[in-house]
């Protein structure tokens, strides 16, 4: 199996496991996100925090030991400095997240769970991403985190 094929299988499996965890935590439900942002219950904050508490030291250790990944070369973590676009983007994302009560990954789980208003949310996310991508096309990506490896799509 080629490395590209292996990466595709890994993508599918990790997507499925992540989607499964989101579904198991009920994060695909508007009511769960809304209760979190109303500060009615701490569970989702604790869920996020505990994921970071587990992953951050392990990543730090792996990077420190110069770990080489089988499919992506030496492990390198992103340490971008905050710029204006991070704050502006974060602010708009937060407003949209509170109104729509979902974000990109949970919206897909919302659809697979049978909640039909996801058919409004998912195209909306695509439209919003497209509007920004169209603005920045040709100017290189401004990414960090998951967008750090994005190529500027040519069309």
């Amino acid at each position, binding site marked *: 199996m080629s490395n590209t094929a292996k990466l595709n*299988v890994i993508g599918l499996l990790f997507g499925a*496991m992540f989607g499964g965890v989101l579904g198991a935590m009920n994060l695909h439900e*508007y009511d769960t996100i809304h209760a979190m942002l109303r500060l009615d219950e701490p569970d*989702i904050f604790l869920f996020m925090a505990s994921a970071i508490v587990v*992953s951050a030291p392990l990543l730090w250790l792996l990077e420190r030991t110069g770990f080489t990944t089988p499919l992506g070369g030496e492990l390198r973590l*992103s340490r971008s400095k905050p710029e204006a676009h991070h704050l502006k983007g*974060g602010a708009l994302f937060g407003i949209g997240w509170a109104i729509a009560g979902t974000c990109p*990954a949970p919206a897909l789980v919302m659809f697979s769970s049978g909640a039909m208003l996801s058919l409004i949310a998912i195209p909306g996310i695509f439209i919003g991403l497209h509007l920004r991508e169209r603005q920045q096309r040709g100017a290189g990506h401004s990414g*960090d985190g998951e967008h750090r490896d994005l190529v500027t*799509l040519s069309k």
Partner: protein
Amino acid sequence: MYDLLPDRLPWFIGGPILGLLIVGLFVLANQPLGASGAYVQTAGLFRRSEGVVKWRVWYFVGLFVGGLLVTRVFREDAGVRSGYDALREVFPLGVTVPLVLGGAILLGYGAALAGGCTSGHGMCGTAQRSPASLAVTATFMATAILTTFILRIATGGAL
């Protein structure tokens, strides 16, 4: 279909599992477990753009499949419904639809501008101790909580 899972997995089980998934994708492929990038690549595939990162499209498919297994196979299937129960109790469908659409467009635009979303910056970026991700996460948490309180006040406490 089956009733194998609790109504909600406890955070102290779900959180560490997610943490290990984040580490696992870095260990295998040196990649962050983010979702908005997967939307961009999937849109690129449909537009037949060059340079599409295919594994992110498979990741996009995986999110749907994993959600399907957990919400409709491993758990009692809630069936086809509108979703957005708390919002629907306050607003009719004619208001809910533009609200959800407008919110989704805003969050999509914001994610692209910030270079990531809740998973990319909030989880993976923070786990990498990226200052930019910490700034994005603090900003979106603050505006999301503020917006929720504004919505609550605007609806007289109904939402």
